[in-house]
């Protein structure tokens, strides 16, 4: 800066700073409001994004669960088929019903 710093320093009139603060009040208040609004929007946005992520996560999880259930059902079916297949009496009844049993087979 200038070597003439003392030359440029001048004590302003009384209440100079107070007048400035009074004039500045509305602008400062508006900037504080804008800051709060920004913060709130940010918070809402982040919450919304988190919520959306949770919903999609849940949907994905449920689909995965559904796939696993179908697999289990399929396996169960096979096992029950095996159970049926091992039951000879039932086999005979079935074959009788279907007229597939030869005399020598009985």
């Amino acid at each position, binding site marked *: *800066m*200038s*070597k*003439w710093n*003392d*030359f*440029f*320093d*001048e*004590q*302003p*009139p009384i209440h*100079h*700073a107070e*007048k*400035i*603060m009074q*004039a*500045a*009040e509305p*602008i*400062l*208040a*508006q*900037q*504080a*409001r*804008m*800051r709060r609004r920004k913060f709130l929007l940010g918070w809402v946005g982040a919450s919304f994004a988190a919520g959306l992520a949770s919903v999609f996560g849940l949907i994905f999880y449920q689909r995965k669960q559904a796939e696993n259930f179908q697999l289990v059902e399929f396996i169960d079916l096979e096992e029950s088929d095996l159970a049926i297949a091992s039951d000879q009496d039932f086999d005979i009844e079935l074959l009788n019903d279907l007229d597939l049993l030869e005399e020598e087979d009985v």
Partner: protein
Amino acid sequence: MDDLELIKKVGQGDRRAFELLVRTYQKNVYGLALRILGSAMLAEEVAQETWLRVITAAPTFEPRGSVKSWILTITKNQSLNVIQKRGWEDALPSDAEEKIASQEQQLEFQMEFEQNLERLKVAVSRLPERQRVALVLWMHEEKSYSELSQELGINVNAVKVLLFRAKENIQKFMREEGT
């Protein structure tokens, strides 16, 4: 808290930070405006306008230089705007004075001027407007003649004449005041 942190807080509407900044630099802002404008009333108005601009520009402030220089640049620009809107009180140096400009004189103030700051303040305040503004900008920013000419929108020769005449008038004032 340093000035950069203060400015950041001012940009967020922090009243206390702003008040601290005002109380720190109000003498510099008011003083520069007074030296340029030569009027206490105008200097107060310009100082207030400067501080309001500081608040509105604070959110986008980029620390290229110091906060103080930034605030004083706003002060200077606001002061010059007042003069330009109103119109200069005095005329540019005439072509007849170009002879002075052709002499490569280094503008210097004698040491005794620095020792008589209060008298110097009075002497500067009594200068014709263009001489006063040219001299104050030269003293404050230590700019070259060509930089001053660009700032004031006049040619380099006119700047040299203004500064030369300003120095002459101050010396005359100091002699008359019995320095």
